[in-house]
């Protein structure tokens, strides 16, 4: 076992520890911001699966996020408080929605795909505001019951417990995406991004793979939606609007296109900038986000996950100080 492996293991352990400790260290608002960041991270992974892995930049994942959120919320209100039931139904709803809309979306690539997905998102957003009877219209859907983890146990009300519930599901989603990426299917998706013409020439039905990625991402976004409904206990059409879609895409870009842990970090950065620091300088969250995006594009061309070299080049002074320190 190499030194690198030891270091990586220690890092994973440290991150795991950090995530586990959050509710014990921070106050309720910070914890709920972490919860939102985790949900957003799952959504960002779905966006990244399409954008970064398969090379199809999307502004439509908020639509499936919304489908999942409404599905989860409706299950909670009308049928079952059990988290597992909500997650499964929501994911299935997202998959069905993606299967129905995907064939249209994958007709285009690049900017055409981006715009088709934008249209799907906006139409979904409008429809959610219109379907009063199901979605509660533009005022949103409230009355979602606290999520129950095991049959017979109490619903989760404490921010810390909700955080753990979301954390567990998010980690499982992360592992699920990891397995997918290591599978031949994942390799094929990367091939789709690199060179679709060649993939076709080798004999792949590339549209089938694009659709497969779309459906998987749709289900994953819907899973995130269900987590959103459980943690916020409120769903509104804005949850499937352009703002969420754009922020998710930007989170992926900031994090490093193609890297899943980068997407998660990017999502956390975006959520904390908007909800946490944005509240500290009340009313200027959009300004902070704007600055964040501009700085990220210039200073970290490959995103947070883009390797250590670009980080080091950011701090030449520190590096110089350290080398002189070492020589003396």
């Amino acid at each position, binding site marked *: 076992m190499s030194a690198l492996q030891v270091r990586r293991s220690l890092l994973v352990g440290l991150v795991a520890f950090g995530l586990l400790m959050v509710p014990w260290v921070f106050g309720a608002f910070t914890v709920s911001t972490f919860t939102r960041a985790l949900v957003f991270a799952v959504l960002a992974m779905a966006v990244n699966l399409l*954008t970064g892995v398969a090379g199809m*930049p999307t502004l439509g994942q908020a639509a499936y996020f919304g489908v999942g959120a409404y599905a989860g919320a409706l299950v909670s209100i009308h049928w079952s408080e059990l988290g597992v039931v909500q997650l499964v139904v929501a994911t299935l709803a997202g998959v069905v929605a993606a299967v129905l809309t995907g064939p*249209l979306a994958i*007709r*285009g*690539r*690049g*900017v*055409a795909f981006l*715009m*088709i997905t*934008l*249209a*799907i998102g*906006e*139409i979904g957003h*409008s*429809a959610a*505001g*219109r379907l009063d009877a199901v979605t509660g219209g533009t005022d949103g859907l409230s009355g979602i019951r606290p999520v129950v983890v095991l049959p017979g146990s109490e619903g989760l009300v404490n921010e810390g417990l909700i955080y753990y519930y979301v954390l567990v599901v998010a980690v499982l989603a992360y592992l699920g995406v990891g397995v997918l990426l290591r599978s031949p299917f994942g390799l094929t998706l990367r091939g789709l991004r690199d060179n679709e013409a060649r993939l076709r020439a080798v004999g792949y039905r590339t549209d089938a793979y694009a659709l497969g990625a779309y459906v998987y991402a749709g289900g994953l976004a819907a899973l995130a939606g269900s987590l959103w409904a459980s943690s916020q206990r409120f769903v509104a059409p804005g949850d499937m609007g*352009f703002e969420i879609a*754009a922020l998710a*895409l*930007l989170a992926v*870009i*900031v994090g490093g*296109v193609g890297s899943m842990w980068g997407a998660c970090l990017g999502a956390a950065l975006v959520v904390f900038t908007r909800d946490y620091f944005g509240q500290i300088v009340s009313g*200027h969250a*959009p*300004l902070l*986000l*704007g*600055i*964040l*995006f*501009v700085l*990220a*594009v*210039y200073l970290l*061309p490959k995103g947070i996950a883009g390797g250590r070299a670009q980080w080091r080049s950011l701090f030449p002074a520190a590096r110089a100080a350290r080398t002189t320190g070492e020589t003396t």
Partner: protein
Amino acid sequence: MTGWFNAHFVSMVDGVAYGLLLFTLAVGLSLVFGMMDVLNLAHGTLYLAGAYAAYALSDGSWLGLVIALAVGLVVGLVGGGLLAAAVAPLQGRGHLDQAALTLGISLIAAEVMVMLFGAEVLPTAPPAALGGSVSLLGHTYPVYRLAFIGIAAVLAALVYLAFERSSVGALVRATVADRDMVRAMGVDTRKVLFGVFGFGAALAAVGGVLGAPIIAPGPGIDERVLVLSLVVVVIGGLGSVRGALLGALLIGQVQTLGVALVPSYAPFLLFGAMLLVLALRPQGLFAPGRA
């Protein structure tokens, strides 16, 4: 039939006004994308800057309008130049980085404009001489919108001729078709980029000055006109002036006549039309051929 025509006559005329306004916005976006593969999401900001210039400087006189137009032109050229300079270091890094950068810039600019002009929608009066309404085949219609149709039609014709007929236009078209070839011919394509960026931005800002009485400046307007112009551009086909013009006129009608015909489906018309076009022709209606 005449009854139907009579009922929707105003909508059709207004669709032309809207379409021409969209054209002034979309053509710059389309050329910059088609030529240099630059996705500029700060394009709506330029319209907003022009519209705020019109609000701040127009006092109901013709002189006010002229000053506003001059300021709008300068703001557009400078803004376009700055944006071109901002995206220049991103050469070869793909659309996503450009999108993040320009969106970030537009968020910052929007915040600055709110600080300067407040958060209200600021309705902007046209020159007093164009202020009222006239009867158009028995229907009341704002004079300014009629005048706008005239001015914008001339503007569109000039842009079209410059692009299709002049030697500079030929260079731009050649760059759209095959950038490497033009570069190999010894043309500095960066200059072409700056030129087209500045031109497109100036057109958007001038569109903002002229369009302020129709789509008034206010928070969120930048994003709205950006989305509209993006829709026009992808419907028309990236990098095509003819496509931008026809796409803009089509969307203009969808947004007026279409809405008048089926008002209850109004929120779905814009994107529904775009989906329909892209489903049939993913490359847009008038995509120029690439070598």
